[in-house]
């Protein structure tokens, strides 16, 4: 009995002390560190994306007094883990890294940042973020809810060393009746170019003998993310006023006649793609195009643009100096006018959770990591971290230009492409809407569904079901928030 009493007293004392430590108020401590003793938990995309958080943990502790607890979760599981913790109100996370497409699902659990940004005169540099990213990723229903971590977008890449060959230019003009477009501006031009440049080993390319088969075009077509490559077509094919839904009725537009043409274009280009492209994820496309040099044109994230100087030579005898062409993704001509859009990947953003016990400290951490500074630029310039440029201070950086000669071409072209930024779907259940699209596009490309119309009708029917499940009127309101 006596022993039990002693243990109980010891536990009470321990609880009292830990409560004292945990209950330390924010702002102003004897050490001069504004958040001494505060612990902030950040849930981050595992691996390279988490590295900058770890790298800065000690500095944050020294300067702000905050202990940073980095919780790594694999990107596949991030949505599930965050959704579970947030919806159950466990308070496990103060800062969440998430894909901005999930904002509709998370809006009840994340803190708007407008007051913080206004209070310190935008020290975090919200207005330094490019408008395309701000609009597509960080603003939701007119409120500033997140800070872009990773300025992910998609660019069109091509073998400029082949495009600039006079012999190829002449042969192309003779066959198709128009000058070889450099870069191609429409999807029809991409089809012509892909057909033209697809050659077998032993044939000539740019006047030299091919040592490997060479393919005109490739998508990253593995089930799981192939819907992106469909959207690159769907959006311009739906010009001049592309929409996922009719904003007035929430009727899906994904099975319109224009949408069908977009999917048919995708299948058409499979003819000029490497075998096995239906199993290609990021690595396979990157390696085939950049390291093997056997793909002429492709669309990918900005990694290739940043690594422009690592492009492999053409698979020909005595290859010319490799040159990577970079451009905005192709468009479609409607009534003689060209419509081009750059899909802004919903990509990675950071928000503060409403359940955070220390939101001020969490905002201080965000400011430390993302405010325009040499520190933030160093994260972006290091390709190992996977954080792509998203701010004017990144794109206009003299330091980057000096350090990597030639990078200005990529920076300028991406800046230009982002003037035509177009958002991805962000309403609640966005993952489900996209996955339904993905599985049907994948099945159509694999031949499991006979026609593009049938595949997209299935998507539209499922999207209608999802609208009903979440509530048509509610989804309509969310869809409107996407554009505010």
């Amino acid at each position, binding site marked *: 009995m006596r022993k039990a009493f002693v243990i109980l007293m010891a536990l009470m004392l321990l609880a009292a002390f830990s409560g004292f430590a945990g209950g330390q108020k924010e702002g102003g401590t004897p050490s001069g560190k504004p958040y001494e003793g505060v612990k902030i938990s950040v849930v981050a995309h595992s691996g390279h994306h988490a590295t900058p958080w770890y790298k800065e943990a000690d500095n944050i502790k020294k300067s702000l007094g905050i202990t940073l607890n980095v919780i790594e979760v694999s990107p596949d599981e991030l*949505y*599930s883990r965050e*959704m*579970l913790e947030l*919806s159950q109100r466990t308070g496990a996370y103060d800062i969440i890294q998430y894909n901005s497409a999930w904002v509709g*699902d998370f809006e009840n659990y994340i803190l708007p940042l407008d007051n913080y940004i206004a209070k310190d005169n935008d020290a975090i540099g919200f207005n330094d973020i490019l408008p395309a990213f701000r609009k597509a990723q960080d603003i939701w229903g007119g409120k500033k809810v997140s800070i872009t971590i990773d300025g992910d977008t998609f660019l069109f890449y091509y073998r400029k060393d082949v495009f600039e060959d006079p012999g190829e230019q002449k042969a192309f003009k003779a066959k198709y009746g128009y000058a070889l477009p450099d870069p191609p501006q429409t999807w029809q031009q991409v089809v012509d170019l892909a057909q033209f440049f697809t050659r077998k080993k032993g044939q000539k390319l740019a006047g030299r003998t091919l040592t490997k088969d060479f393919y005109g075009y490739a998508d990253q077509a*593995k*089930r*799981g993310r192939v819907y992106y490559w469909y959207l690159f077509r769907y959006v311009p094919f739906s010009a001049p006023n592309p929409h996922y839904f009719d904003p007035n009725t929430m009727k899906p537009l994904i099975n319109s006649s224009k949408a069908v043409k977009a999917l048919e274009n995708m299948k058409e280009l499979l003819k000029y793609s*490497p*075998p*096995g*492209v*239906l*199993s*290609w*994820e990021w690595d*396979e496309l990157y390696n*085939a195009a950049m390291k*093997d040099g*056997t793909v002429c044109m492709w669309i990918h994230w900005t990694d290739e643009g940043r690594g422009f100087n690592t492009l492999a030579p053409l698979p020909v005898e005595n290859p010319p100096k490799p040159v990577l062409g970079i451009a905005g993704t192709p468009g479609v001509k409607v009534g003689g006018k060209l419509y081009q859009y750059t899909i802004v990947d919903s990509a990675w953003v950071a928000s503060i959770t409403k359940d955070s016990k220390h939101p001020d400290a969490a905002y201080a951490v965000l400011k430390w990591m993302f405010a325009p500074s040499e520190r933030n630029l160093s994260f972006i310039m290091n390709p190992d971290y996977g954080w792509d440029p998203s701010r004017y201070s990144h794109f206009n950086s003299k330091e980057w230009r000096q350090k990597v000669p030639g990078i200005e071409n990529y920076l300028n072209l991406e800046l230009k492409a982002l003037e035509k930024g177009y958002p991805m779907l962000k309403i*609640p*259940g966005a*993952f*489900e809407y996209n*996955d339904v699209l993905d*599985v049907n596009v*994948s*099945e*159509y*490309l*694999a*031949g*499991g*569904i006979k026609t593009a119309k049938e595949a997209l009708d299935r998507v539209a029917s499922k999207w209608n079901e999802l609208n009903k*499940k*979440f509530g048509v009127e509610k989804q309509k309101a969310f869809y409107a928030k996407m554009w505010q």
Partner: protein
Amino acid sequence: MTKKRTSLFLVIPTVAILVLIVIFPMFYSITVAVQNYDIRIPNHTFAGLGNFIKILTDSNFYHAALVTGIMLAVELAVEFVLGLVLAMLLMQIPLSRKLYQPILLIPMMVMPVVVGYVGRLVFEIRSGPINYLLNVIGIQSLQWHASPHLALITVMILRVWRWTPFVMATLLAGLLSLPVEPYESVQVDGANARQTFFYITLPMLKPVITLVIIMRALEILQAFDIIYVLTMGGPGISTMPLSLYTYLKGFRYWDIGQASAAAWLIMIPLSILVTFFVKMMEEEEVEVEEKK
């Protein structure tokens, strides 16, 4: 304390744990299966049999059941034959068995996620070693996991590679534990190797075979990791088994109601299968006892 009370006292914790970790989740999942239960939607309305009807009218569910059925039939048959052959071969080389057995068990120790990633490289269409070897012997490259017709075969090759060592090890343990007397008797009677195998070895090995089949069948019904990494159920839905179908419903689409309904629909044939095998095992045990 009386003997009866002592027994009761000892049984209660076991029953309590059983209720907590088996009975309660089962009943809870029934309550979830009859609700429109989506974690993102605050009100979970009563759905009755709606979730079950939705699953049973979903063509993808039947396709996933077909994929699972094919995997069950093919993997069980191939793994059993290969496992038995390997176990018999190892029986023939008692001295070098200690060397070969651990080597043959390596695939079983590799994490399934790693198997999936390695599979992507090994079966890569243009630069993978499998297609290279095919080319060397004059066969054209195959599209493996990129082809809707070959993707499931690719998945099964990897899974058979991973799980055959388990079947082999279990059967080998069974073979090593068999009594030698029956073999001596049939040798005296002049039985040949085929007769010895079919009339002595196989019948005596039956309990171990049944156990292996139950364990493998249960694992195949839960097959997930390698498929998730290698194909994500694609191209299209060509490699989507019931486990991935249920996972997507529950943890990607957050329709926990439908996922629970699907899990219950999967559990029915699973229970029948397990009951059938357990009955078989019991009958064999009775037969063995009677023979003794």
